[in-house]
């Protein structure tokens, strides 16, 4: 013990010395908070990782001190949290809003105190807030149109929706159904809420298949669950060539399935393998929060930021699906959009992480919260 003391003391001194300038520097950094809702699902955790990676990228880390907080699933608590953040002297608050309307009053109050409030993925209807999101109606419509065309305007389809009672779900589902009504040959034979989870999608599909059989279903429109639907068809003995067309989420597993049969991939297993599955893959992009942080930097730097940023809708079909080898941002910028199963072991993981606006974040950001290394 006697020998260790000096080294500990030295380490403490060293820490103190190095910490001092940092601490002094931290005061110059703008205080920015992230108020998340529920983080207990794969999408939210991935989005958090990307925001953390963005915050760690040199340009942001020099100017912004980001603090991440979780409100849990209740709107009351997020209201309390945002208020507390305003009290703590936030310059900006990035929010994943639990409700598009319930936060309006607290957001308005924050705005009036000069705090920038920016919501990602879901929107806040209060006009003083900034929103970064995809066009949910376009997402629902694009998937619906692809499916209707693929089926030649005729056939029985199963619809798996998201979380009932949310704006995102209502917009996507209504837009898709509007497309289907334009095609009188398309008949929805079953519909169930999939809660944006592969696990729930499987349970709900299993229930539907207890009273329907696969031969009476021609296609599927799902908000999340195409990977699982293909997997279930294989289990039911349907050959890969006869898989039903499915319009759905941008899961990595689903996109690997879209690759032509025999494409060499590393770490394939079970249904998580290339099989040329007919698919349309769109996504709510997990990088939207990271991009929101960049917008905060712009705004704090005095730049003009639009109140409503509509991100381009990633749309991947069998013609455009392309495997990434490393998953760097540079490689993605050249058009690849799905990752090796050995790197992404969870097939439900959301693969639409590329944006031309965010060269700071690549695959490592989404998986490990590490920013891209600068060359």
């Amino acid at each position: 013990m006697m020998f260790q003391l000096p080294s500990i003391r030295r380490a403490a001194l060293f820490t103190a010395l190095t910490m001092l300038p940092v601490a002094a520097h931290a005061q110059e950094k703008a205080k920015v908070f992230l108020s998340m809702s529920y983080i207990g699902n794969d999408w939210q955790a991935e989005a958090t990782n990307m925001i953390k990676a963005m915050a760690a990228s040199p340009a942001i880390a020099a100017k912004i001190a980001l603090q991440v907080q979780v409100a849990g699933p209740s709107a009351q608590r997020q209201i309390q949290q945002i208020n507390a953040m305003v009290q703590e002297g936030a310059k900006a608050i990035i929010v994943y809003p639990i409700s598009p309307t319930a936060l309006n009053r607290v957001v308005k109050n924050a705005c009036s105190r000069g705090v920038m409030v920016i919501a990602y993925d879901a929107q806040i209807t209060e006009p003083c807030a900034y929103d970064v999101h995809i066009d949910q109606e376009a997402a629902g419509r694009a998937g619906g149109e692809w499916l209707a065309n693929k089926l030649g305007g005729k056939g029985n389809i199963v619809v798996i929706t998201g979380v009932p009672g949310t704006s995102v779900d209502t917009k996507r589902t209504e837009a898709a159904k509007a497309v289907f009504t334009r095609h009188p040959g398309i008949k929805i034979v079953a519909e169930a809420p999939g809660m944006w989870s592969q696990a729930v999608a499987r349970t709900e599909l299993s229930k539907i298949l207890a009273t329907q059989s696969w031969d009476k279903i021609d296609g599927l429109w799902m908000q999340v669950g195409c990977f699982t639907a293909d997997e279930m068809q294989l289990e039911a003995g349907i050959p890969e060539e006869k898989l039903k067309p499915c319009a759905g989420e941008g899961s990595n597993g689903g996109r690997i399935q879209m690759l032509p049969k025999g494409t060499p991939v590393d770490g394939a297993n079970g249904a998580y393998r290339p099989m040329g599955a007919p698919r349309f893959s769109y996504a709510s992009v997990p990088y939207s929060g990271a991009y929101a942080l960049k917008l905060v930097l712009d705004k704090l730097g005095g730049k003009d930021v639009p109140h409503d940023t509509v991100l381009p809708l990633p749309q991947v079909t069998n013609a455009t699906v392309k495997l990434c080898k490393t998953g760097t941002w540079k490689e993605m910028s050249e058009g690849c959009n799905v990752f090796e199963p050995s790197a992404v072991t969870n097939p439900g993981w959301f693969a639409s992480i590329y944006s031309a606006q965010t060269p700071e974040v690549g695959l490592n950001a989404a998986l490990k919260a590490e920013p891209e290394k600068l060359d």
Partner: protein
Amino acid sequence: MTTMAYAPARRRSRSGPFLVRHRGALVALTVFLVLLAVVLGLSGFSYFQFGFIASGGASLALAAIGQTFVILSGGFDLSAGAVISLVNVVLGSGMGSGAGSQIAFGLLAIVIGAAVGAFNGFFVAFVRMQPIVVTLSTMFIVQGTTLLISDKPGGTIAPGFVGFFTGDAIPSVLPAPVLVIAAAAAVWLAVKATRFGVGLYAVGSDTDAAFASGVRVTWVTFRAYVLAGAFYGLSGAFVSAQTGSSDPLVGGSMLLQIFAAVALGGTVFGGGRGGAIGSIIGAYTLMIAVNILLALNVPAFYSSVAEGVLLILAVLGGSTGRRAPLAQYLRLGALRLKARRENSLASAHRVSFASPVLPPRAPAEATADRQAPGWLTRNRANLRYTLPAYAGLAVVLVVTQVLKGHALTDPAFVNSLLVLASFLTVLALGQGAVILTGGLDLSLPWMISLVGIVVAGFVSGSDPAALWALPLGLLLGAALGAVNGLGIVLLGLPPIVMTLAMNGILQGAALVYSGGTPSGFASPGMRRVMTGHLLGATPVVWGLIGFVLAASLLLGGTIFGRRVYAVGNSPLAARFSGVGVGGTLIGVYALSGFCSALVGIMLASFNGQASLGMGDEYLLPSIAAVVVGGSLITGGRGRYPGMFGGVLLLTALSTLLAGTMLPHAVRDIIFGLVVLGAVLVLRD
């Protein structure tokens, strides 16, 4: 919920009866004041701060007051969150800007709440159905109705209404929410002082004694639900003002928080002890935890852990001192040790009792004409509670047959049904055993997810790895479950608080362990069990049959099973009969952890991989299946075959509804009505 009841008779406290009676609320108040001091110390006091803390916890506090009425009466109300949402969308879509309209809708909020409460109260008090079944059904019916009124967030609340509830009562001096809560507290104190208030405590303490002393038990119970509903309605009105808009999902997520607030405030589940003032303090404590997490800069993945620990600590404050279970166990242990040293243990006394003289056996002929009671007679009580679930199942299957043209005649349908039911079948044993002892296991969701994620990570597609990873996962679940039991037995924590806190801690553990991205996947062998074929069925179906037999035997035919019932009926009587109450409780929670772990593994096998939050969908159904199967939520009654019937009924019903083209909202309503109808015959 009755686990504390076996504490030995209290000795007179020197600090006076006031402190003793209000101990729970006083501890809650102390905890709240300490937390408040921390928050204010870090951020400084201002009128704005005062106003927002007052407004932030108000809706939860109002709902918790309502829930307190029901819990004091010995009930349990799951419809609270749904009522808040319903009131919110009614106000958001109907309220005009005129003063008359605002006042009318403010009153309507309370009327809607009271009406739902009256519905609950009617079935609980007059039809004598179990509160949890009634309010669960009501929850689904109200939820569906809410979605029918508004299927997405929107709506506007008039500014005057907003100002009335959340503005200033006296500018820069008194925020309006303080006045609202003070008024609510005054109503509570006034009600408590009435005959009804006295009756409420009497009914909750001992229904039979209350009845014998002339308390009109049914009316007291009925009024408890109506009053509770009115407070939920008021809470809904406050939420509307606080948010200035409507959202059909706003109340649902408050439900567990409401229970936590009541438990934190010192009200005992099972009835008779506690009060609404404590619940108000509990609600504000839960809300201020948000500020604490922010002030301490707790990292995101750890926030649910920090909250779980906070919850435990807050309640733990109430169970220290000489009367604390831990102190008692230590004292008893010391006495036992002393007795052993002095060789004065009961077992050391060799007293020989003379064999009691039995009356001579009646000759065989004499009993022959007295008909021996048949199996039906002996099991009449059990059958009465078990049959409704199966009768309901039969009806649902017939309807499926008629609508779909095939059900029981189709082996594929039966197979799918059993595979889907397998998860709840396993969970029903764990949750069922916990409920039989009068507890509730809320840690199920993240026990399932955590074990699923850990096991899938170890297995990573390898069958040989599954051979050791599966037992390890089951062991992990049982061990974590035993920790629940230890907290409840040794620290004297209410089961709801302990398991809710554990759920948060496990969520944090799963997030940290997986780094937000669960890796790993099930092995081919695991997958085959859940999705393959064996002898004309999915292999898990055969396992299911074995499980049901084993579970029925465990609860119905073993010493452990007898002890579970004994503890559930009366922990005190059980203890005097030589049942190790603590050990039994720990065993029961370990069993529940084991079952959750098994379901985690089954889900990982079924889906191919484990995902965060995959257990979220199973908490309410696990409770519902157990009570629909005839178990008493306050413990001591229920048979596993009945619970299995409940599982089959719920699964068949949701399968039938998934096969229809009815809107989701209507499916919710039908689900609620069928559950209510199926159990209508199940009366005490």
